[in-house]
């Protein structure tokens, strides 16, 4: 009696599950029209730029061979960059950039994939899309294709840029593929994480942890053995990226290994998607307390609760970075000493002739610049709370605007000082341990790191100013911070004139440890920071909120 619809053939089912992928992909690319080009061009520029600086610094085969030999002989440098496989200019670029480029491409990819999968589900936007003609597998496919587009563009930019500046074409392509393939592999891993967790932040965190583990495995493997023999290195995709050996007898088969791993991870992600409901996850959300703890009773308690995990993560990161930098400081200083031009750059960056102090000062400066990212992010939490509508009910309570702002500012100002203190302590202690001089430089190094605080606070103040006076353009403050950081990182090696370096608050700090410090620049920066903050707070009190 009843007529049954003929069962669809397997390819037809598959096609139906992918329905809508095209429009979703276009939507994703449209949403990422700034993000992807910025990442691709930025990363491409760094890789190609490294090429020209190596060409200038190590202009003879003898110098390059010396550098390669000394780098390969130094365990801590191998931990950071991996072994040097070839001593051509290209080989040095691959040595310096394969690992770091791969890490950055992985970060870009995981951000893209989580942004278009779990974040869309978490915000409920995907529900609306999935109610339309969108197949079950379409959102994940569109997200992976977006990541593929970005990584393919990265391969083209890097390979084209390097080949265009005179490097051998095959090696350029190999380095581009090493970086882009790592990106794709982590895109697929992020796709798995996005199925496992209910929160986008946690999905990013999980993939980030996998990336950190991959880096640590490779670092451990490369420290343990010279050459490329350690199995630890071979567990890590970052190890694969380096062992693709761009410009040094490319091992193209590793591209296949990458593709197989990415395909496998992708299959796992698809299998997980098919077994769960929209918005649900495999890792169950744990219930929270039914009653708020005593500490959660005001704007300060709330800000602390919202930001404590972030602060903890940054503190841990600074301790690790400080420990790593401190451990390689002595070796690095020895290495740098061998090259006249690098010595000059380091002396300019670190502000003095004693190379160990110059290196420590450079690292303290690095920590200082990175700390600004934390502090500005903490201030911009205010902006996030406001635009998400979470500030409104808080301010509808008996909470003054300044008290609400102060909660988050306390974390921005206090927190940046705390992470610098921990980072500085780790840097100093780890240096002293590796130099066999317990307690020798810990004090001065800690002081040097804390000396960065006024510059960090100046940028923090700028963020408060933007939040108070330019609520619609608040996030533009990231561009200013990015400008200051870029100036600090590449300025010294590009011979940027003094007045331009002075545009950044970091340009005014004495190069500690080692240099003479006067109170004036610190006081000026603190005054400037206070001025910016006060002006921003006046804006917060007067403007419309919410």
């Amino acid at each position, binding site marked *: 009696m009843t007529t049954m619809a003929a069962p669809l053939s397997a390819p037809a089912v598959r096609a139906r599950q992918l329905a809508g992928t095209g429009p979703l992909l276009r939507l994703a690319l449209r949403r990422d029209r700034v993000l992807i080009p910025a990442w691709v061009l930025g990363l491409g520029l760094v890789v190609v730029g490294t090429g020209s600086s190596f060409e200038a610094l190590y202009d003879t085969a003898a110098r390059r061979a010396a550098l390669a030999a000394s780098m390969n002989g130094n365990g801590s440098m191998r931990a950071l960059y991996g072994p040097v496989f070839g001593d051509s200019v290209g080989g040095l670029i691959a040595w310096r950039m394969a690992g770091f480029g791969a890490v950055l491409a992985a970060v870009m990819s995981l951000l893209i994939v989580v942004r278009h999968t779990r974040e869309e589900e*978490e915000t409920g936007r995907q529900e609306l899309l999935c109610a339309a003609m969108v197949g079950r597998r379409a959102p994940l496919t569109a997200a992976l294709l977006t990541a593929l587009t970005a990584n393919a563009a990265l391969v083209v930019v890097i390979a084209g840029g390097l080949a265009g500046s005179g490097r051998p074409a095959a090696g350029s392509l190999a380095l581009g593929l090493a970086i882009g393939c790592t990106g794709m592999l982590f895109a697929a891993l992020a796709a798995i994480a996005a199925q496992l967790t*209910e*929160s986008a*932040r946690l999905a990013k965190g999980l993939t980030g942890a996998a990336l950190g583990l991959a880096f640590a495995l490779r670092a451990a493997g490369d420290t343990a053995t010279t050459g490329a023999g350690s199995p630890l290195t071979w567990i890590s995709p970052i190890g694969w990226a380096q062992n693709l050996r761009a410009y040094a007898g490319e091992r193209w088969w590793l591209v296949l290994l990458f593709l197989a791993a990415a395909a496998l991870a992708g299959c796992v992600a698809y299998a997980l998607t098919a077994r769960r409901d929209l918005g649900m996850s495999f890792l169950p*959300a*744990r*219930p*929270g*307390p*039914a*009653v*708020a*703890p005593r500490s*959660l*009773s*005001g*704007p300060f308690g*709330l800000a602390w*609760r*919202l930001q404590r995990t972030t602060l903890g993560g940054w503190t841990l990161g600074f301790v690790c970075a400080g420990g790593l930098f401190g451990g390689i400081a002595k070796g690095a200083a020895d290495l740098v000493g061998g090259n006249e031009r690098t010595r000059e750059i380091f002396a300019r960056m670190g502000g003095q002739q004693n190379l160990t102090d110059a290196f420590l000062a450079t690292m303290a400066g690095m920590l200082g610049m990175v700390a600004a990212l934390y502090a500005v992010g903490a201030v911009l939490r205010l902006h996030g709370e406001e635009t*998400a*509508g*979470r500030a*409104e*009910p*808080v*301010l*509808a*309570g*008996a*909470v*003054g*605007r300044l008290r609400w702002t102060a909660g988050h500012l306390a974390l921005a100002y206090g927190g940046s000082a705390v992470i610098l203190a921990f980072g500085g302590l780790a840097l100093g202690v780890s240096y002293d341990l590796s130099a066999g001089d317990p307690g020798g430089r810990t004090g001065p190094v800690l002081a040097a790191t804390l000396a960065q605080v006024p510059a960090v606070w100046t940028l923090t103040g700028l963020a408060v100013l933007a939040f108070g006076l330019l609520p619609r353009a608040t996030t533009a403050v990231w561009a200013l911070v990015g400008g200051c950081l870029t100036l600090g990182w590449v300025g010294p090696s590009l011979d940027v004139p003094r007045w331009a370096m002075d545009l950044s608050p970091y340009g005014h700090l004495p190069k500690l440890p080692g240099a003479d410090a006067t109170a004036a620049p610190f006081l000026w920066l603190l005054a400037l920071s206070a001025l910016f903050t006060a002006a921003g707070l006046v804006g917060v009190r*007067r*403007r*419309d*909120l*919410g």
Partner: protein
Amino acid sequence: MTTALSPAPAIRVDGLHKSFGRTHALDGLDLRVGAGEVHGFLGPNGAGKSTTIRVLLGLLRADGGTARLLGRDPWQDAVELHRRIAYVPGDVTLWRNLSGGEVIDLYGRLRGGLDTARRAELLERFELDPTKKGRTYSKGNRQKVALVAAFASAPEVELLILDEPTSGLDPLMEEVFQNCVAEERDRGRTVLLSSHVLSEVEALCDRVSIIRKGRTVASGSLGELRHLTRTSVVAELAGMPNGLGALPGVHGLEIRGQRVTFQVDTDKLDAVLRSLGTSGVRSLTSTPPTLEELFLRHYQDDARSEAIAR
């Protein structure tokens, strides 16, 4: 204007103006909410209801006009006032890693306290699990979090400002909500209820204000507002209707034999009934305008004038 004898209004807004760039969100809005009343605040989307409420909460600064809340300035005295106000937004967003119970306590503490017995009772009545994290609540459950916090607020709270509070609630919960508002009124609290659910407004509100394009177009008790509109009449007559169409205030007259259907301006009802009486009335049904008709009339005028302007 206001008589000195009536108790000081809980909310008094005169000629409020607010622009965002080129859009005039509020264009001379007036609003009076008496102490102890439940006041319905109606208007189409984008009429300026939420903007008015945010001015009343001191989140936005008005460009012109005056606003007084419990006798004080909502911008200047925001913090002191907020101890006496509980607010429920129409779209509650929660922190994803805080549990519902934590948010209820936080909102209460920010206001100066929470009635814990009432909190427990309300959790039960709204069937809300306070241990779930913010990101896992559905829209209706997020709304309940804010409602429980508002209804369980300490006795110092005199005024509840509810901005479309029942969006996302199911009919059972809608009933719980209505009971809660009635209890709040019995406790002497004033309620400003912005809503689209007209049955809810009809059931709960003593007075209503209807706004359109940032202006108040009607305000008063439901009875007063009804008086300004038309009643529908269906009558079966003994004879032929005479001169009904010529009477002032009669609209949309339809005559089918001895059966007449028409609408009449409520204030002209008396004259019309007398005229019907001369023809002999066999049966008569008169329907007062529903709030919906009231509402639609004000909105449709709007749509019509817009069509003309085009």
